[in-house]
């Protein structure tokens, strides 16, 4: 039984680890400025935990192999160094990992969540609702119109509750269902929710942030590659949660300018 356990555990360990090493299922290529730091930290964590995983499981397997089978009359042996060596190893090794990862990690985290957006960031208003994302650009006047919850009417396409009749700034606001941004341009999203909690997740951008009803949450990033990417909701928001998504179009500056011009026409 013990030898069987050792063999089974070894196979499980090596097979599981191999899928991590081979990147069989993996994160998509990163397209953000802050992404490489996160990916590097991920790689370091994977290395540390991977070694820990393999060493721990294989040691367990090996010791089970050694200690099982016919053993009547044999005396049990204490692990050399006893508990002291285990405590020391855990405190030093794990402690070191923790310190290292915390130091490295706080810089990466701060770049995303604590540092303010650069002053030249393109400001886009994002509203999440059951079950869609809507994006609002300020238009040629560079001003966002005020939002009024009592004026919201999805049927009329007034998702944000704008009041163009009385609010000059609202008249040229552009509201669309997908997010189009220029590459290599800092973007500042102001995220708010119309109804319940949602979340904004773009894997390639290494961005995920909850929408909190009642709060306006800023998220900033800079995309480094063009392409079409998916924005999906990751906070359980109701029956349509699985279907709540939008597209992110990262285009060249020229394409963006052209797109903006075509939107202003409407």
């Amino acid at each position, binding site marked *: 039984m013990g030898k069987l356990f050792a063999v*089974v555990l070894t196979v499980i360990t090596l097979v599981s680890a191999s899928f991590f090493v081979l990147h069989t299922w993996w994160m998509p290529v990163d397209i953000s400025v802050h992404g490489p730091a996160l990916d590097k*930290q991920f790689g370091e964590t994977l290395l540390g935990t991977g070694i820990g995983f393999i060493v721990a*499981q294989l040691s367990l397997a090996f010791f089970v192999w050694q200690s*099982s089978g016919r053993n009547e009359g044999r005396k*049990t042996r204490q692990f050399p160094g006893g508990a002291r060596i285990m405590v020391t190893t855990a405190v030093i090794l*794990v402690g070191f990992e923790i310190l290292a990862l915390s130091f490295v990690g706080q810089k990466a985290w701060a770049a995303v969540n604590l540092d303010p957006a650069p002053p030249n960031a393109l400001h886009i208003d994002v509203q999440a609702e059951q079950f869609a994302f809507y994006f609002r650009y300020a238009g040629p006047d560079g001003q966002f119109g005020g939002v009024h919850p009592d004026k919201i009417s999805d049927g009329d396409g007034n998702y944000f509750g704008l009041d163009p009749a009385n609010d000059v700034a609202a008249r040229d606001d552009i509201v669309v269902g997908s997010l189009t941004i220029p590459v290599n341009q800092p973007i500042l999203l102001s995220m708010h929710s119309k109804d*319940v909690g949602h979340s904004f997740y773009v894997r390639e951008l290494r961005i995920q942030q*909850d929408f909190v009803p009642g709060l306006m949450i800023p998220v900033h990033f800079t995309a480094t590659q063009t392409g079409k990417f998916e924005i*999906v909701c990751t906070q359980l928001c109701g029956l349509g949660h699985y279907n709540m998504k939008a597209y992110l179009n990262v285009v060249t500056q020229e394409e963006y300018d052209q797109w903006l011009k075509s939107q202003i026409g409407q």
Partner: protein
Amino acid sequence: MHDTSKQTAEHHHSPPQGFLWTHVFSLDHKVIGKQYYFLSLAAVLIGMILSWLVRFHLAWASVAIPGLQHLSQVGAPGGIITPEYYLSLLTLHGTLMVFFVLTTAPQAGFGNYFLPIQIGAEDMAFPRLNMLSFWVTFVGFVVLVSTLFVSDGPPISGWTAYAPLSAIGSDAGPGLGTGQVLWVISIGIFCIGSLLGALNFIATTLDLRAKGMTLARMPYTTWAWFITAVLGLLAFAVLLPACVLLALDHLGGTSFFIPGGLVVSDKLQPHSGGSTLLWQHMFWFFGHPEVYIAIIPGLGITSHILTATARKDLLGGTRVLVGCMVSIAFLSFMVWGHHMFISGMNPFSSLVFSVPTLIITIPASIVTLNWIGTVFGARLRLHTAGLFAIGFISVFVTGGLSGFFLAQPSLDIYLHATYFVVGHFHMVMGVAAIFGMFAGTYFWFPKMFGRMMSEPLGKLHFWVTFIGVYCIFMPMHYLGLAGNVRRYSAFVDDYLAPLIPVHKFITISAFVTGAAQLLFLFNLFWSMYRGKKAEENPWQATTLEWTIPSPPPFDNFGGRHPVVYRGPYEFGVEGTPDDFVMQDSPEQPAKS
């Protein structure tokens, strides 16, 4: 000689008369322990079936499940699960499993049965309160399951019931009116049952220990149940008011968790002023200690069984294990924010919370390394209980290591709300804690029922389960790395299409593993009536439960007052005829 009669007399109660008092409203901790255990068994069966429904739907969404429309015509018309019903089933699965299985069987089930015996007592400190605690918990269970039968079904907000989805009412979706209110009531009732039980455990452990049973000589399981009870006393005390406030948002028109200006289903909601993050803070302040309540008894049970399996005491003994369990319990109150890294709370708090979260890794690693070090140089007796105890070590390593990623806010940005998290918590709670329960069942069944379970069936159960759980939950980590979001009833996004074969693999593994659990069920019930008769100490273990008949008499020790002369795990002592010495044996000098 010290007069022990006063305390004993205070806690003595005579044998019950009549069917109701013996089997239904029994004051006997052993009966109550079994009642909790079987309640958990019912809950885990329902929870497991729910997980099959959910997994089936993910793999084969357009295939009808025959008969399901009879459970809910609205939720599964023609046997095909709607997106909202998927979430209802998922919510019920999580709620049943976390509360009525993981918080119940390891602590209230085994703890009730064995804590008094392991400390040499006749019963718990407050037997009537004990009986009440069980029936209160039972009522909570009935209320929860009743959500399956109300018109709108169970709530769709997950076991975490985040506001405002859970607070607004039926405007926000199906099941969020009556279903959510019933859910809140059920959990509130459960809180009360748990609080009363925790109180009982603590008083019993401190006050009812037999002569010679110092705190240092208590078995690892007793320590684990004691520490878990302290956690429960403090943690459930926060969930209870949170539930009351959420209920008030539904029934009293309050807005504790609902800010102003929300437009749901085209209706401007009449609420204002509340905070959705307040719910998250209150819930997770309870929620994090809760998951340690789920696992610490398992740590104790594994350690306890490992000694009898390995024929040696745990490396580091009581001092190190208890020190680690206490550190983990203490730290568990400081980390709740790690469930909220990207929730919109001040991002600086996220960095603060990640520090104690990472520090918890240290005592957890110490415990794990000590287990592995105990297996070194052991003389393993790999009966089924021992196999599950050693299997626990393996799955605890796996589950714990994935936590290392999630403890770092910067990595959580990518991994939050993906299947990586689902894999992590299932590995530690859905696998490791369950392995603890299996180990405990196989180990203590002879004592509880006076018969042995079938070893061949048990071993088969172990092998299929051990391989099966890795097949189910390891791939979830890969899915998470690919960014597969959780709580989705279908995978319609472009990037998810290539991952569906992995989901099919997981689903098939889940069915095979589930089938093995039916083996376990059969073994459990068959052995109660047809198992080989068990002796007093079939595993040749050392603690007090093995000094009494199988099954024990009504007052555990048959009127005598046990005296403890030595520590709980004296295996391989020099100059002894067997390789173990019972805790109440005065013949040889004590090691400790």
